[in-house]
């Protein structure tokens, strides 16, 4: 089963084409990794999945992105509804300008949940990311006071609190120290089977450790896509082989 399918996707920033004829389907409740050298269009591809690309006025998008079989770019589709089904964990942890509690509660309040429910979900999610014991005494304190690793876990809790079906991670461990990065990685691994996770990473070893499915991109084109064992065991394209051997990129 696939939960997200991309069909013939083309993206331009002004006149410059960033994605060319992308066709790929991401397996449901598995971790998929998008790898490739800097500037090859990984973030662009990821942001096309929750229509965040549109925040940039000069972006032009062609093609289809199917979420449970329905094109999220079709006319009449409610962008807000699409976005609340797809969570995003960014590269740099970004706490909203409010308290720790309010950060996790933010998405829930948007959905109009009641107070008791919000308090429950916030606690459950903070526990799930292993932050509860560290912050339960200072839930009202500004979230900016947390360390980088704690902030990223808070962001994960905030994203998961709204119960998305798909979790997008754009190099979510890249800005963290090794220990915090490991922590986030383990959390993502534990989410396998519950969420469809699509992660962008620079780190081939991380992809090896986590991914069930791998997509390799090069200069805006999709070069190879395969289940992880196949991808790492017997890469077909020469570019892939060179990249995995770290001869290029």
């Amino acid at each position, binding site marked *: 089963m696939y939960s997200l399918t991309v069909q013939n996707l083309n993206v331009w920033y002004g006149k410059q084409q960033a994605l060319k004829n992308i066709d790929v389907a991401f397996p449901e409740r598995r971790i998929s990794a998008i790898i490739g050298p800097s500037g090859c269009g990984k973030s662009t591809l990821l942001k096309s999945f929750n229509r965040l690309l549109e925040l940039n006025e000069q972006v032009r998008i062609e093609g289809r992105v199917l979420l449970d079989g329905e094109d999220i770019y079709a006319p009449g589709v409610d962008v807000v509804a699409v*976005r609340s089904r797809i969570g995003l964990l960014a590269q740099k942890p970004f706490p909203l300008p409010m308290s720790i509690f309010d950060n996790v509660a933010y998405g829930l309040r948007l959905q109009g949940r009641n107070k008791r429910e919000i308090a429950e979900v916030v606690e459950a999610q903070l526990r799930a990311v292993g932050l509860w014991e560290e912050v339960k005494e200072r839930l009202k304190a500004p979230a900016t006071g947390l360390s980088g690793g704690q902030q990223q876990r808070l962001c994960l809790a905030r994203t998961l609190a709204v119960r998305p079906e798909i979790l997008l991670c754009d190099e979510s461990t890249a800005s963290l120290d090794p220990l915090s990065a490991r922590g986030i990685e383990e959390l993502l691994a534990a989410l396998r089977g519950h969420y469809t996770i699509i992660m962008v990473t620079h780190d081939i070893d991380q992809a090896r450790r986590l991914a069930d499915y791998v997509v390799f991109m090069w200069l805006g084109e999709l070069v190879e896509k395969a289940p992880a064992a196949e991808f790492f065991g017997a890469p077909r394209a020469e570019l892939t082989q060179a990249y995995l051997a770290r001869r290029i990129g």
Partner: protein
Amino acid sequence: MSEHISDPIPQASVRPAKPLYLERRRLEERVFLALMRLCLLGAAAALGMILAVIFWRGVGALSVEMLTQPPRGNFYLGGGGGIANAIAGSILLASGATAAAFCWAAPLVLYLHAYARRSRFAAWVRLTLDVLWGIPSIVYGAFGFSLMILLGLRASLLAGVLTLSLVVLPILARTLDEVLRMAPHQLLETGFALGATRAEMAGLLLRQALPGLFTALLLAFGRGVGDAASVLFTAGYTDNMPGGIFSPVASLPLAVFFQLNAPFPAVQERAYASALVLTVMILVISLTAHLSLRRLGKHVVR
């Protein structure tokens, strides 16, 4: 043609710079440093002198009566009373105008940032605000006055507040605009990714802008308190304490003006005392604005 390929790495010149050049460049630096310090000193001296003059000429006339009493009958001939009417009037005018301008500027600027973004429309709005900022306040005064005539209104607190709010609006709107422009792009991405609508995004932006918002309000208030030309015809002037939004009110800049025009040295001295009160008010507001920018920023993500 020789087959020789030139050395790909050019050799660095190892000759030392001539000592003469070094000497000249050091001298140049000293001259420019001295010039910059002179300019700095000049600006500081100008501010210092203004403060000194109004302090020395005004402090003698400053008294509790001056600050707490409205003028009595023969005030402008050197009689008793004070400028409490103008102090109260100015505070009312400036805070009313700031509040009115805020109710107008905040939705406008939030619309620009949550909806219009970098559209051509947004560029036009910003240009318009910049033009409005540049218009001298006497023009607003004249505009407000002709509007009053048209509507059959008297000079009043209400008319003064509305006119002054026009003066303050571009300042407030553009300051807010700049504050929001500094909001990181990731704030938008995070909010939208969590399923915020554009209206809810505006709320998030407002939160991010809170410290800057406070500063913008204070700046606007400071400008409003000091403006004379826009309230001259519209708010009028009176020796009474403010008595409702439909009656005229006094203001500090005009109090300075009228007293300075009096032929009696004692009254002129009071003009300086009034100017001192006004200046101290503005100084306090500016300092608070400056300090608040650091204090209120505790939730803000940089």
